[in-house]
C-alpha cells in the first residue's frame, strides 16, 4: 500500500503571532516555522503503517516556498521514503486556498495512485479544515475526517465530533483520511534519521507543471486581532447574574 501524506509549513504553534502593520496579513518576519501539528500526526500514522508492514511506501507532499523542503525533510526524518515539493511563492496561510491545494494534491494522486491519503484535519494558520474533503471529492473517493483511530482491517474510522465519537465504515481504498489530535502521538525525528533523510529524494514541481490554476476565489480584506478581553463585572445576587446573562449577554 502506498500512503501519501500532506505536510504544511506553518507558524510554529508556540509563537505569539502579530498582525502586520498593513493589517493585510500576519507578520511572518523572523518567525519560527514548523510542520503543522496535525500534519505531524498524519506522517506518524503513515510511518506506523509502514512499520507494521501494512504500507510499503510513504510519500510526503508539501505545497509552498523553497523552505517547504525543510518540512518535507522533517517528514523524511520521521520515516517517509520520498518527498514531492510543489513550489509556489504565494502565501500559504492566506493566498493559497484549500481548493488550490486540493487540486494540486488530486493531480499528484493521479500520477502516484496512492492507496490512502492522510492529511492533517486543519492547518493552524488557515484553520479552514477543507482540503481533505475537497480532495476526496475531486478524487471521487471516500473521506473520513477528524479520524481519532483508523482500522484498515475492519475498514472503520472513529471520528471525533462535538457530540462524541462516532464510528464510520469506509467501503474501500483509496480513501482520504484527515488526522485528529487523538490519532497518535508523533515521534521525534531521531538524529540518525535526520542524517538518513539527507539521502532521500525530493522531487520539485510547479503548479503549472500540474496544470493547476492557483488563483483564489477569496480576497483577504483585513486581518485584525480579536478585541482585548474586558474586565469582568461583580454581581451581588444570583438573580442579578441571571438577569445579566439573559438581558445583556443574551445567552439564556
Amino acid at each position, binding site marked *: 500500500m502506498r500512503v501519501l501524506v500532506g505536510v504544511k509549513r506553518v507558524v510554529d504553534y508556540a509563537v505569539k503571532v502579530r498582525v502586520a502593520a498593513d493589517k493585510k496579513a500576519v507578520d511572518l518576519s523572523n518567525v519560527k516555522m*514548523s510542520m503543522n501539528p496535525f500534519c505531524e500526526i498524519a506522517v506518524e500514522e503513515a510511518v506506523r503503517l509502514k512499520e507494521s508492514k501494512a504500507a510499503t511506501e510513504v510519500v510526503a507532499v508539501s505545497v509552498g516556498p523553497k523552505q517547504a523542503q*525543510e518540512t518535507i*525533510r*522533517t517528514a523524511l*526524518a520521521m520515516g517517509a521514503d520520498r518527498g514531492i515539493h510543489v513550489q509556489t511563492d504565494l502565501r500559504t496561510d492566506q493566498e493559497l486556498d484549500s481548493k488550490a491545494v486540493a487540486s494540486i494534491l488530486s493531480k499528484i494522486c493521479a500520477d502516484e495512485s496512492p492507496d490512502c491519503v492522510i492529511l492533517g484535519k486543519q492547518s493552524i494558520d488557515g484553520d479552514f479544515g477543507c482540503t481533505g474533503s475537497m480532495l476526496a471529492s475531486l478524487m471521487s473517493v471516500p473521506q473520513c475526517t477528524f479520524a481519532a483511530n483508523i482500522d484498515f482491517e475492519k475498514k472503520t474510522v472513529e471520528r471525533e465530533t462535538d457530540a462524541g465519537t462516532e464510528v464510520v465504515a469506509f467501503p474501500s481504498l483509496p480513501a482520504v483520511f484527515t488526522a485528529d489530535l487523538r490519532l497518535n502521538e508523533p515521534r*521525534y*525525528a*531521531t*538524529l*540518525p*534519521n*535526520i*542524517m*538518513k533523510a*539527507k539521502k532521500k529524494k525530493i522531487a520539485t514541481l510547479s503548479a503549472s507543471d500540474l496544470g493547476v490554476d492557483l488563483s483564489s476565489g477569496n480576497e483577504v480584506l483585513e486581518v485584525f486581532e480579536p478585541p482585548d478581553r474586558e474586565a469582568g463585572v461583580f454581581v451581588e445576587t444570583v438573580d442579578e447574574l441571571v438577569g445579566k446573562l439573559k438581558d445583556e449577554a443574551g445567552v439564556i
Partner: protein
Amino acid sequence: LARYAPRAFRAAATVRRSLSALAEEEAFAPLRPAVTMFSEEEVAVRDMVSSWCKAELQPHVREMDREGEMKPEILQSLFANGLMGMEIPEEYGGSGMNFTSACIAVEEVAAVDPSFAILVDIQNTLTNNAIRFWGSQELQDKWLPRLATDTASSFCLSEAGSGTDAFAMKTTAIPSADGSYYTMNGSKLWISNSKEAGVFLIFANAAPEKGYKGITAFVVDANTPGITVGPKERKMGLKASSTCPLTFEDVKIDASCVLGEVGMGYKYAIEILNEGRIGIAAQQLGIAKGAFNATMPYLRERKQFGQAIGDFQGMQHQVAQLATEIHAVETMTYNAARMKENGLPFVKEASMCKLYSSQVAERVASKCIEWYGGVGFTEDIIAEKFYRDCKVGSIYEGTSNIQLQTIAKIIANEWE
C-alpha cells in the same frame, strides 16, 4: 593566504556594486556564510533537540534538581533519540553528525537543564571522541556501539591532590610482568555522572618513575571488580548530575583497555580537553540564553509605576548589554567549532570561548534574578537554578585562570 583574502574580497565587493548585471555578479566567488548560518541538518538538530527538551525534559527539571537524581527514562530517551552518540559513525549505531551539531545539542539541552547538558557534553566531546581518535579497532568495536545506544561514560582525571596540576596524579596502573594486564590503585575525585556511567575513561600512571610521561588512558567497564563509586557530592548546582569520588583497589585491567599508546595519556588528556572546552562554552551559552529567554517575558508582564518594567531605560540598557555579550559568546563558540572542523589550530579560540562564556553566563544568570525582583530569589522561578548551575562553568574543564594562562602563552609565542 589569510592576509590576502580580505583585500581581494573587498575589491570584489566594490566591483560587484558598480556592476548591476546579474551575470557579472555570478562570475565572482560565492558568498561566504555567517558563523551563525547552520546547515540544514544542524538546524534540524536544533529544532529536534529543543522540541525534545520542551516535552520530555522541562517538566521534570525542578524535581530532579530537588532530588539530586536523573530520571532513568529521560536518560534512556536521550540515547534513543541519538543524542549520546552524535559524532559516532552510523555503522556503530551513532548519529554520524559533526562537532557543531554536538555543540548545538549541548546548547539546547543546557537552556533547559544544564545537568543533562554536561552529561551529553562529556559523552560526546570527551569520551566518544577520545575513543574514536585514539582507540584501537577492538576498543572502538567494543565501546562505540554501547556509547551510542545505552552506556553513559565518565571522564576520570582529577584527584584530591591534582586538579589543575593534573599531571601530579597519584593513581597508578602498574603493568604485570608479561604486560598482559595492569593493576590500578588510587582514587579520583569530582567525577561527573559516575553514578550513571557504565564505562570510565581513567587516566593513571603506568610508570610513575617517568613522571607525567607514564600517564596512560584506560577505557574501563564500570563493573570491573575493585572499583567503588563513592557517595554523591552535595553541590551548589548541577544537582541532578552525580559527582562522586572513585576508589581503585587492585583493579585488574586488561592491556586491551589501554587507549592508544602507553605513556601518551597526558597528551590525549590535553588534546581532548582542548576541544571539550568548546562543548563547555556551548553549555554556558545555553545557560545564558535559557536564563535570558525565561526572563524577558516577565519584563513585559511586570508593571510598576503604571508601566512594564522592561520599558525603563535602565532595564533596557542592561538587557541590551547582556544580549550583546550572549551574541558574542554564540559567535565565538560556533566559530571555534568550525575552526576545529576545518582542521585549523583552535586551542586559543577554544580557551577564549570557555573563559568568556562562563563569565557571561554568570553575569546573565545573576542579572536575571535581579530582573525578576523578589520572586527571582525563590524556587518558583528558574533564574536561581541557572545561577547555581553556571558557577562551576568557570571551574571545571580548566579553571578561568588556566584559560587565561593558555591564551597568554599562545599570544606570547605569536609575538616571539
